[in-house]
């Protein structure tokens, strides 16, 4: 049996510690040791981003980090977005703008979005698409995800965040990079 290692980190502000195998992936630590199953696994080559969490504020693919590498770190997952019963503006944006369908990529997508908006409060569409380019979605075609993040940006800047009317075409002025 491999010797275990003791790790202690915070997840959404709560301390979690355990004796674990050094090879335990951070995503499995989050899902199975901490019991937070909102972070998902979608691939095995660090390609899809469904496992994205924030480690000390930086988006990280938790399938490609060992839990021991996050020892002492502050990890943020989707479960920590809602505060005091109030949805985070990013969550609100995804709800208003139909930014999710099956929901599987959504936690990772939203964590990437929160990190983006923390460093770039008013991102352009090109900047949004660049930031989420490491998060694959098969359902939405990304258009409404972009709108969801734009909604969140407006809301976080205090502007009145009105959802774009459904079924209106986006028109030629909104284009990818």
């Amino acid at each position, binding site marked *: 049996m491999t010797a275990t290692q003791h790790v202690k980190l915070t997840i959404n502000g709560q301390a979690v510690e355990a004796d674990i195998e050094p090879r335990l992936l951070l995503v499995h630590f989050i899902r199975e040791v901490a019991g937070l199953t909102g972070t998902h696994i979608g*691939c095995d080559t660090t390609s899809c981003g469904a496992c994205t969490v924030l480690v000390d504020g930086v988006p990280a693919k938790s399938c490609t980090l060992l839990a021991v590498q996050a020892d002492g770190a502050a990890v943020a997952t989707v479960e920590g977005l809602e505060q005091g019963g109030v949805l985070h503006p990013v969550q609100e944006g995804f709800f208003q703008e139909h930014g999710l369908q*099956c929901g599987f990529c959504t936690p990772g997508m939203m964590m990437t979005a929160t990190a983006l908006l923390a460093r770039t409060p008013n991102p352009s569409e090109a900047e949004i698409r660049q930031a*989420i380019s490491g998060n694959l979605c098969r359902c939405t075609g990304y258009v409404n995800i972009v709108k969801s993040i734009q909604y969140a940006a407006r809301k976080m800047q205090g502007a009145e965040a009105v959802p774009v009317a459904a079924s209106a075409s986006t028109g030629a002025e909104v284009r990818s990079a």
Partner: protein
Amino acid sequence: MTTPAQAPIHGMGHSVKRKEDPRFLRGRGRYVDDIKLPGMLYMDIVRSPYAHAKIVSIDASKALALPGVLAVITGKDLDAAGLAWMPTLMGDKQMVLPVDRVVYQAQEVAAVVATERYIAADAITLIDVDYEPLPPVMDPMKALQPDAPLVRPDREQKTNHIWHWEAGDAAKTDAAFNAAEVVVQQDLYIPRIHVSSIETCGCVASFDKVEGKLTIYMTTQAPHAIRTVFSLVSGIPEHKIRVVSPDIGGGFGGKVPVYPGYVIATVASIQTGVPIKWIEDRSENLQADSFARDYHIHAELAAGRDGTMHALRVKTIADHGAFDAAANPSKFPAGLFSIVTGSYALDAAHVEVDGVYTNKPSGGVAYRCSFRVTEAVHTIERIVDALAQQLNMDPAEIRFKNFIPPDQFPYKSPTGWEYDSGNYPAALQKALDKVGYQELRREQAEKRARGELMGIGISTFTEIVGAGPSHTFDILGIKMFDSAEIRVHPTGSAIVRIGVQTQGQGHETTFAQIVAEELGLPVENITVEHGDTDTAPYGLGTYASRSTPTAGAATAVASRKIRDKAKKIAAHLLEASEDDIEWADYKFQVKGAPGRAVTMQQVAFAAYTNHPQGMEAGLEAVDYYDPPNLTFPFGAYICVVDLDRGTGEVKIRRFVAVDDCGNIINPMIVEGQIHGGLTMGMAPALFEAITYDDDGNIQQGSFMDYLLPTSMETPAWETDKTTTPSPHHPFGAKGVGESATVGAPPAIANAVVDALSHLGVTHLDIPITPWKVYSILQEHGIAEA
């Protein structure tokens, strides 16, 4: 509780925000890998590196010696219980675990059950399988040669030819071709692709030895059909099997078949009496299941010199891999491919498809193909463009010339389909206007003169969805009706249980909207449940865009049964005769006295407290809906591309999609389906293909090589609609989930060919990769260094 008078009804046509979102947004979705049951064990699978090999021996001793490993299951173990083989949904049979030979790379060879996920993963590397490799056959044309390796020696007919299927009138078609002024031919290969929903497949199988009951949480789009199949195979009676589809992270058809992993996990659970979890890695998923397409097509189109199309002839070789496990309706081994005459009024058509075995994993009808309509539409839309190019006609003009006119619906096609409704010219005109077609053609001419490569591609498709009428459609003998059961509670809210299964399409919202509209109850007071075979009425599941056409119709009809009873109660409450009561403005009103009215909520309360004497209490209904026909959504797509002469990259500058799916329940959700569908149409057009080398190795074993579109490649789709209701559907709706994946690839392919047509390019097979384009540019001496 919301006061009924205040809460909005928001039935048909409202962009109601989704009722399923609250849990997904909070990371509280319940996907199969989130399920943890007491005592649960983990299963992992040893897979064959060879596409074709004899199994000489399996030595599991080192694995069994690993602490935490409880069992190793091989084909020999299953064979002893008569379970080494299982039926496929297509009437073929498939190995669960092989006894003596493997027939595709990544085939399941043995399974390990262990106390922990990581131990199971360690254990599979410790199982020594001694293989004697055999030559694989990876090409269906070679597989049809007499000296080809035999993929399926278990079958009576010692051939790799599975079946032959035909539709249309060969003689009439031949005559039309003989008389034709112009004949265009086109070979197309539509490669195998992989659906790659972000969640892979998996299950938790849990057999309770005390109750004798098997519960399986499974990524399945068709839980009832699975339950029946499992009952037939295992001998456990159906009332002792419960299949539960939890939240599913994308299906798109890849989660319809019964994969060996589910069966092995079930057997393991039955034997051990504890829950067994099996979740595929992405590499396993990418290499072993969830495939689509793989059609080799030869098409011919007979026309007049003026561009009038007369007849179509199509011959197809369908590569089905080692087992025919495509989940098509039983009389349609090539799915609905005979829709290949498309949106055009042809005099005659003849379609032939031959299914062939190769040493690949089972091919399938995943990836939003709508039962092979993607293949059919790609064929007709490409060959129509080929004809236009040959005759030097504008591709929009040739389409207008040949559309089935709006006044000819219902339209009987040369291959026997009765299209319910359509207005193709209106959709195409709307798309042309929206994209600014004439201006784009002018721009193209200017750019071409300067050596810039710009193309415009059109696709005007007719889809065929909503399988299907019982006289023609069944899967393994089970008719393809669907169902809804509605119960209205005393205080005016309701629960709806349906036989279909969402994997992201928003059924918890849209089906509530149907009931809201039909019963005048606020949508927020209606709960939709599905996916649990213990409680949901029997349905055939969600795939091929069938939910709204079948279960949606059942929901409306069940609602109307409730309304019929409610009307009697209303008459009783209003002290009027039933003939004097009408349903208007979401109320039961006395005709001519609109002030005398009662709401459905008042009726519901009365159904439990004050129903007429002699009438049963309660307010509920069930409907099993047998659709009288399929529905035929359609659309017109226009794609504008610019080709990079330095890299061969195809950049989609604009994509206008005009869709017609009849009456729309939730415009926001429909738009989302179109966006996603277009992206899954672009992917095979430009990026995705699953290929094998001659030794049978898959060349795209991980997401490093199988490239899904990201936010960077995906354009800002422009969507619009026309509305041509279905005359036979209870609320005039058609399906829509796959339309965009059907219509988009030929629009893109046509655009690229259009960009290169002045060089003499007449066709390009998808995926149109940068390398393909760059090679052509080099050939013509116009590639930029």
